[in-house]
């Protein structure tokens, strides 16, 4: 997925007017702690100051530039919530005068043994901030397509990258990328050692923008709807296969855009199945999945065969380093399997 984001940003520099890709260690030589920004034209290293990063992105957007700002880990974005709120209300407060076309991208979630400060989720907090659009891909192709749309937006977009999926290779290729993984790596991954003379060889990429606000129907099913995004998405997909072998037929939606989300797709599916599980890994109190569950409950109550359920992270102050602690804190494969099975078979 890191390569997909890099290719999307290259496309966006070439075709969509992106002028500044910046943040801590985003520029050469490193190109980002996850290599998402290696070899790009408009990258630069910022001071270690998240408030300055968000503020500068806002200023750039005001002045007609098109910034993509990175916060190195979403764990370090929490001193900028006031600025994110401000970016989200600037158009509204000025009664329509000042829109801010800017993208903020940041890695989120657990799965890399990141301990307390490299495992945070940001979907709950972000979904409570009006005026933004928020996306969170679970495949490289979606990451590519959503980034193109993000870079075309007239409004601020928060691009959440599931850390655990940073290195996954997608089933579907990005249009233009060479089929051979090694060839791609040779073309666009910076070499070890001296990089001062290296330049990326970009493949001929094409526009494969994915509109914001459209969920992806990952699997059709009839007995249970599961809505997820990000790191837990592959777990849900796998669980659906496991359950299918048990004769339980789950429908799976990848939300992809968290706001504005694809309410129609959820309604259609839940009307069909009467059961729905929302899965994410943010802590579960005042969680975005709870919003979705609440809305489904309010609007589709008399279609429901069982209570809408939310499977999310435990409400603990952090994710501990030891595997045992992480496994107990955020949904794992077994938790997803069990939650889907329980809901599919729940009877009054």
């Amino acid at each position, binding site marked *: 997925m890191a390569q997909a984001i890099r290719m999307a940003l290259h496309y966006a520099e070439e075709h969509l007017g992106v002028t500044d890709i910046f943040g801590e260690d985003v520029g050469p030589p490193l190109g980002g702690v996850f290599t998402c920004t290696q070899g790009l034209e408009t990258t630069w290293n910022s001071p270690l100051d998240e408030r300055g990063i968000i503020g500068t992105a806002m200023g750039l957007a005001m*002045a007609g530039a098109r910034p993509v700002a990175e916060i190195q880990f979403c764990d370090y974005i929490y001193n900028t919530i*006031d600025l994110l709120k401000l970016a989200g209300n600037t158009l509204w407060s000025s009664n329509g005068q000042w829109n801010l076309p800017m993208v903020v991208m940041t890695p989120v979630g657990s799965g890399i043994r990141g301990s307390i400060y490299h495992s945070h989720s940001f979907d709950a907090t972000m979904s409570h901030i009006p005026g933004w659009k928020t996306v969170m891909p679970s495949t490289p192709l979606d990451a590519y397509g959503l980034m193109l749309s993000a870079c075309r937006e007239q409004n601020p977009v928060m691009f959440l990258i599931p850390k655990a999926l940073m290195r996954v290779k997608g089933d579907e290729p990005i249009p233009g990328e060479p089929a051979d993984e090694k060839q791609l790596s040779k073309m666009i991954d910076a070499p070890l050692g001296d990089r001062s003379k290296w330049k990326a060889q970009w493949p001929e990429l094409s526009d494969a923008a994915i509109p914001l606000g459209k969920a992806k129907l990952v699997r059709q099913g009839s007995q249970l709807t599961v809505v997820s995004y990000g790191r837990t998405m592959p777990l849900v997909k796998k669980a659906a296969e496991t359950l299918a072998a048990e004769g339980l037929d789950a429908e799976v939606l990848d939300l992809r855009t968290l706001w504005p989300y694809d309410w129609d797709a959820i309604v259609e599916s839940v009307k069909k199945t009467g059961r729905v599980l929302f899965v994410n890994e943010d802590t579960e109190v005042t969680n975005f999945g709870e919003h979705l569950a609440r809305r489904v409950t309010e609007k589709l109550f008399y279609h429901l065969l069982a209570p809408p359920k939310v499977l999310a992270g435990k409400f603990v102050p952090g994710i501990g380093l030891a595997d045992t602690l992480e496994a107990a804190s955020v949904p794992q494969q077994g938790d997803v399997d069990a939650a889907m099975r329980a809901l599919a078979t729940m009877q009054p």
Partner: protein
Amino acid sequence: MARDAKKLKPVKEFKPLITKSDELPLDPERLRFMHETMVKARCLEERLIAMYKSGHGYFWIGGPGEEAFNVPLGMLIKKGQGPAFDFCHFHYRQSATLLAMGEHPLGAIRQMKNTATDPYSGGRNFAGHFSKREWNIAPVSSPIEVQYAMVCGTALAQKRLGGDSISIVTGGDAGTAEGDFATSLVWSSRPGEELPVLILVTNNKWGISTPYGQVQGVERISDRGAAFGMRAKTIDGNDPISAYLELKEAFEYVRTERKPYLVEARVSRLYGHSSASGANFVTAEADCLALFEERLDQHGVRSKDEAKRLRQKYTEEFAELARQAKEEPFPDGGTIWNHVYAGEPGKDPLAD
């Protein structure tokens, strides 16, 4: 072995240098424009206060007492839209600057009355919270000091464009305790990437009820620029002539050198912090307008009588504008959905 950091000389109490004998180094026409705009600004703020006190507005905040600094500032701004023009990241005491730039006072009155016609926020935001994209005036927002975190963004676009446009940020003395003030110093002075930012601080020695000297140990706020290697100075914001000349020097430096300049201006706060603290005239502080009128009279540039007439004229004019605004409608409740997203019709996302 160790190198001690620079020791700063103690600074004596700052006193406005207005004397009877001084020369007026600006041409009379400019002086008269300056004065008239200061009068206009004062009358406008006093009208807004009167509106508040008579129940035609819920909250007042503004800049009476800062006209001697804010008017020259407005006169020096290159106004227009986009990075080829100056960007203004202001706080809530900048009405005089807008008037000096040529803004019509009706907008401020409408915002005070929170009518739908308020050109800055459509009745959404407090008085003094200007926003005018046509002139690159970024929306004034209430949180103290966030504008200092944004100013380097517009300046970066301007630096890249070439030309002579700059970004200007204003804020108060108390606000410099926020980290965002330091952010503006750090980001504007990256080696080889210095930015054309004019960093202004109006030091009125107060943050609401808290005296500056009680909570901050920095004698001259401009000194905070020293470590960053940037030009910096403290000026008298109560003298419009000196303020004009000092600002002019700073503007020219930033326009041509494309590097930051930090200017602290010592100013008065003539009606207290805001309506929350009563909005009554304070006699203990220097009134820059009265002092300037004294001086103009002495130098035969404008008589006291003439000044008085101007004041009367604008007082009446603005009372009339206020009467006009009072007849205008409030925004409709349904409009809360407008302008959540650019380019999209407003609607409740959770409505069925």
